[in-house]
């Protein structure tokens, strides 16, 4: 089993999967950074190019900060870490995010 398949299997079966939340749960924190509630917006994973609504992405908040993963390939889509000097936002994993007009 390659590393990605392993992670997918873990995400589905591992008891630690209980820690996973939905993208909706960090909508407020993301809105503070991105200027709008993005949970109903489609985002494209930079790794597998699948498009999911941000609200349906997998979220882990137990570590230091917020990690958002793609529900299809489990790669990291975005990361947010609060540090004493500011907020670090890592957007490498997101290829595109479509903001609705209005």
């Amino acid at each position, binding site marked *: 089993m390659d590393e990605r398949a392993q992670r997918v299997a873990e995400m589905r079966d591992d008891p630690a*999967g*209980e*820690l*996973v*939340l*939905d*993208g*909706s*749960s960090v*909508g*407020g*924190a993301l*809105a*503070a950074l991105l*200027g*709008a*509630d*993005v*949970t*109903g*917006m489609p985002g494209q994973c930079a790794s597998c190019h699948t498009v999911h*609504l*941000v*609200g*349906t992405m997998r979220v882990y908040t137990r570590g230091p900060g917020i990690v958002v993963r793609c529900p299809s390939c489990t790669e990291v889509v975005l990361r947010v870490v609060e540090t004493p000097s500011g907020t670090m936002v890592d957007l490498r994993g997101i290829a595109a995010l479509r*903001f*609705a*007009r*209005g």
Partner: protein
Amino acid sequence: MASIGWQVATVSATRDETSTVRSFTLGLPGWAGHRAGQHVDLRLTAEDGYSVERSYSIASEPERTGEVDITVERIEGGEVSPFLHEVVVTGDRLELRGPIGGYFVWEAALGGPLLLVAGGSGVVPLMAMARHRARSGMSIPTRLLFSSRTYDEIIYREELDRLAAAGDGFEVIHTLTRQQPDGWTGLSRRIDEAMLADALEPLGAAAQAYACGPTALVEVVANALVRLGLPPDRIRTERFGPTGT
């Protein structure tokens, strides 16, 4: 596209739903309205600047303006819910951000039939949907499958009874997982695929499903509903994380 900033809410009423669950009515003069299923973030800040945020689903229907209800389960050892339960009284002010959520939402215009599946306090956003449905006057066939540990822990029990008695197509199916009162005729096990099949059957293949509760329960529900033939894009989920945290 309005940005979502912090605003001050004033607690205008509190109501005990069960021995560990309390509802708070938060007055929000500048509230721009919400959709059923959305949540708010509350922020508590200590004198030394330490602050903590938690998300709480909105329990009230969008038809009510200028205020929202949230329903909070007291989590032992938690940072926010014990404060809300033990310290906050009517007249207190809280920092609030919202409404948040563009995915786990339902509006009467979206129609149905609706299958709502809740575990414990996961019923809160679904209650906003049930209240919205009732206020809309539309008889959208709706079934709420609601898992609670014991009879006394059923949140909104009397109001759910009233909504079901209205005879407009709203049904509640209770299951009690830990203890059942004498003479209990409802279900008495954790939500499983057979239970979901029975709940879904009268609603037909066009049903839309909303499931909210502890992550493990939501996983079971989402996977079972897919196996029962519901398209994944008609199953919306909201996970609370591990049970009891």
